[in-house]
């Protein structure tokens, strides 16, 4: 017993901000449990929560990678739409043209990955080679990808996929939603990338200071290109889950996810100026968002109120971060002044 307590006391979050996130997450879960114990802690609700967030969790992972390098990717949802339309077309027309269902699904997924790589390459070339600021580059490609998706579908929705495909978004393995398992795998891979590989290390470095990283022999161009390709692939995976869950695809699906992805990434401790961002923080951010979202749903709040809430939450978190930082600096300066006065005396 004693050793467990000691262990808990000795446990430290690697990122200091995660301590507060953990408290907020626990508080959110606790509040929801106290307010409606029967609905919130029911197996159905937990299962549906676990199935709801992966599609947008992948988008958040993508957004975080871009933010770590000091950029931003406004085109994630558009890329997801574009790849989703292609996949939907292959799935509906492929089976109609006589392809076996499994090969149609494989083909669709391969097409998603391939097109996602092209999308990421477009962003990467613009940002790393041409030198366009990420906001502008991805703003442009957002219009391009979404425009392509709209042109292809002429604004109509495509629906009616093979039932095997629906397993990706709706199926469960021993009661655990399959999309949740996919997200866990994805998060672990991204975690390994960020913490165990050269690519991840240099991404943080570029985010802190591109000049320093260049002078220490890092090929910035290559690292940034790879980052945006990865971002687009994650968006592609999100799109597969999205269309499988909805059993249809229409350009403009998930446009609200852009704000939510930025919100969660900032909430999870990433800095829009680059250099910060970690998987545990992001996951806690996602859980906080999902728990409040489900809570608001159960309490029957309107989607407009939720829109209001997300904007409010984003601003609140950013402001608290700013004040905490300011207060930390203030205390440090005060301490230094005190030490200086002792020294001079």
């Amino acid at each position: 017993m004693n050793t467990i307590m000691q262990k808990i006391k000795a446990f430290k979050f690697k990122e200091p901000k995660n301590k507060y996130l953990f408290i907020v997450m626990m508080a959110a879960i606790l509040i929801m449990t106290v307010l409606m114990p029967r609905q919130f802690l029911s197996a159905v609700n937990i299962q549906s929560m676990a199935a709801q967030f992966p599609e947008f969790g992948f988008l958040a992972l993508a957004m975080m990678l871009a933010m770590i390098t000091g950029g931003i990717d406004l085109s994630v949802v558009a890329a997801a739409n574009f790849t989703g339309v292609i996949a939907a077309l292959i799935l509906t027309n492929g089976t109609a043209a006589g392809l076996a269902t499994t090969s149609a699904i494989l083909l669709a997924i391969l097409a998603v990955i391939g097109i996602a790589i092209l999308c990421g390459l477009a962003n990467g070339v613009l940002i790393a080679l041409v030198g366009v600021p990420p906001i502008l580059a991805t703003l442009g490609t957002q219009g391009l990808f979404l425009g392509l998706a709209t042109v292809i579908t002429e604004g109509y929705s495509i629906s009616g996929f093979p039932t095997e495909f629906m397993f990706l978004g709706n199926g469960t393995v021993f009661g655990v939603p399959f999309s949740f398992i996919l997200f866990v795998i994805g998060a672990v891979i991204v975690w390994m990338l960020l913490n165990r590989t050269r690519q991840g290390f240099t991404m943080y470095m570029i985010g802190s200071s591109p000049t320093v990283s260049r002078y220490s022999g890092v090929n910035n161009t290559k690292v940034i290109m790879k980052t945006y390709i990865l971002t687009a692939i994650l968006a592609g995976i999100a799109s597969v889950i999205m269309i499988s869950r909805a059993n249809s695809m229409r350009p403009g699906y998930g446009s609200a996810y852009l704000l939510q992805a930025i919100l969660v990434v900032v909430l999870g401790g990433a800095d829009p100026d680059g250099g910060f961002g970690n998987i545990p923080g992001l996951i806690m951010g996602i859980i906080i968002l999902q728990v409040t979202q489900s809570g608001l749903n159960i309490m029957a709040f309107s989607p407009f109120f939720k829109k209001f809430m997300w904007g409010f939450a984003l601003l609140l978190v950013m402001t608290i971060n700013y004040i905490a930082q300011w207060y930390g600096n203030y205390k440090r300066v005060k301490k230094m002044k005190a030490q200086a006065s002792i020294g001079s005396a």
Partner: protein
Amino acid sequence: MNRMIRQLTRRSETYVLLIVILFSAFVTAINPAFLTLENLFDLLRSSSGTAILAVGIFLVLLSGGVDVSCTTIAIVGQYISVNVLIRTGIDNIFFMFAISIALGIALGAINAVFVSLFRLPTLIVTLGTSSLYHGAMLEFVGTKAVNVGGLPQSIKTFGTMDVLTLYRPDGTTYGLSVFFVMLVAVLTLTYFILKFTMVGRGIYAVGGNLEAARRAGFNTTKIQFFVYMYAGMLAGIMGVMHLGLIRYSNPNYLVGTELSIIAAVVLGGTRISGGTGTITGTMIGVMLITILEKNLIMIGLSSYWQQFFVGVVLILGVSITYLQAKFQKTGRQIILKEEE
């Protein structure tokens, strides 16, 4: 003269203007109806509001920020003010403008609090506030659209008011809308502020380097508040104009069109990093986007291509600008090396 030409070739606005002229010629060749006074007046009427909004976004970009909440502020101003008009029964366009502008300035000031006092990144602040404003309006004010039947008379009169009336051969009339006069007024005022006032010069300074501007003695907080409140005011004006134009107040309109307006401003040569840009350039950018958006149908392409073309034009435009900057830099480095 030579120097002037050389300077012109260096500015991306020149190329954008060339593209505008070429595209107009192309559209005219396919559909001669494009280059008639009537169509031009119509284009001016329908794009004046967008242009006014673009001026606001231009100022924000100039000061080193990005504002994606302008269109939301415009629709909030429009929807709330038209509802106030209907509920109170005061049928006066100036009253509507007053409410919409006051709302715009207030919401702009909220943006400024986060940007200036808390020093948060402008893109994320305005993303957050636009969600906040729009959500709050839909939740607490209403979601029902106001159609022509329920619209106060003064707005309808305002929407069709002309300052110059011309006759078609068959005796019917068309004219230059009052919207254009408002655009000219806004442009003149903004030009005057940027050129001749301390605040205006300060906007360039803040956009160039905030810290340097502060140390040079500019009141950067005041300048940033001015920029966001001014942009909010213009958004408020645009909201009323938009209603006069389309005579239908849907609380979900306008939201989502901010990116193409930012694209227009950036195409006009304004740097997203702040400190560089002109009003003339901004207007040329708006012209390009307007012509692209309004005339795809005239050359026989469906409106689905709109977003695609705006994206392509934006990518090409900014790529050229930044490639130019890159080559100029490397060119300078080569010269420096040779001098060594």
